[in-house]
């Protein structure tokens, strides 16, 4: 696929070994200019933007907290102002926590719901309004999870936020289709990413070996695997694909849900 001449915004994209970085690099590789967003990791974000510019594409790092609506509106405006337009919106920023429901703290609940769910709503709605006004269609791709199809103990709130994103994407798809804007979501399984460093299922070599037995592909995904799936959904070829879930998990949940 080619994304030549398109402009993409990717949230949660700065950090090394992150899905967002994998998405940003894959889209740039296919020809997109990129606004790299993250709430922190400024050095890594600047370095990534520079790496993309070295590859011949436009890029800038824009620090913003997706839970802050005014900051999100400003970020979307910055993409249009600095990169000329907006075509592809990747709502990827997310956090995870592991607690059984009886132990979930209000702080953990709020952080996951605010970043994963409200943050995505802010990014998608703010961007969609700009895409509609632009009048040339567009692509929204949300990073959800295999949690959409399979429940994982100790992750009720995280899983809930991802299931909420599934429903949000489906409603965006219906409402935005007349504007030639598609909305889809991707489902990472086990990705070799920093967010999984804290997973209780991946703490020791033994944990890793056990978890690997659950994955038919026999290895975890790299962030770039997520990026390649997003690149397809962002392409002209995927113009008729909307409200859809593209699982990218090496077969992890097949037969388990």
């Amino acid at each position: 696929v080619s994304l030549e001449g398109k402009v993409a915004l990717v949230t949660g994209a700065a950090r090394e070994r992150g899905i967002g970085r994998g998405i940003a690099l894959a889209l740039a590789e296919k020809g997109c200019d990129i606004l790299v967003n993250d709430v922190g990791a400024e050095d890594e974000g600047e370095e990534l933007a520079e790496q993309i510019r070295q590859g011949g594409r436009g890029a800038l790092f824009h620090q913003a907290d997706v839970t802050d609506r005014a900051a999100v509106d400003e970020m979307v405006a910055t993409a249009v102002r600095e990169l000329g337009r907006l075509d592809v919106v990747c709502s990827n920023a997310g956090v995870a926590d592991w607690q059984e429901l009886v132990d979930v703290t209000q702080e953990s609940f709020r952080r996951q719901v605010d970043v994963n769910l409200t943050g995505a709503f802010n990014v998608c709605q703010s961007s969609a309004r700009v895409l509609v006004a632009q009048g040339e269609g567009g692509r929204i791709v949300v990073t959800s999870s295999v949690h959409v199809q399979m429940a994982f103990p100790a992750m009720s709130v995280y899983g809930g936020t991802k299931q909420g994103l599934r429903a949000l994407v489906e409603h965006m798809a219906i409402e935005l289709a007349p504007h030639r804007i598609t909305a889809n979501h991707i489902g990472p399984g086990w990705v070799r990413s920093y967010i999984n460093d804290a997973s209780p299922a991946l703490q020791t070599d033994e944990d890793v070996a056990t978890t690997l037995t659950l994955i038919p592909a026999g290895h975890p995904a790299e962030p770039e695997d997520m990026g390649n799936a997003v690149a397809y959904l962002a392409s002209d070829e995927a113009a008729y694909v909307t409200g859809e879930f593209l699982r990218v998990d090496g077969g992890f949940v097949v037969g388990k849900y």
Partner: protein
Amino acid sequence: MDTLRIGPLRFPETPFLEIAEGEWQAMTDALEQATFELQSFARDREGGASVAVVSSAATARAIDGCALDAVAGAFLTTVAQVAAVELKARGITVNVLVPARPPDEETLSSVAELLASEAARGVTGAVIAADGGFSVTKEVGGKPPVTQG
């Protein structure tokens, strides 16, 4: 049998592009309240309890303009299913009822009662249509693929 019923949570039918920050915030506040109500119920009990969480018709299949209801119901569906797994050893069942649109209270209460009966002790983590068949044809809202003639 101790029972807890959560939902259906109902929110304004606002198109996605027009949802106000305050409307969204009210929805997530309601999710917080519902989640901690379930937590509090589970903490206080050791066996012999049944929880019925009511989602939304728009959670199961999208209905134009019902994003807030759909997202809330989706969130609670996964929370309920994970809770079902975590609380199974304590004899607490947690199931999800998918209502019609608008929800029919009589059907919801009778199905919740059924799930709280001894005969349903083995039913947990299930998503059950309690909607008089609404989900099959989606008579209200949406654009059902009706074959004519």
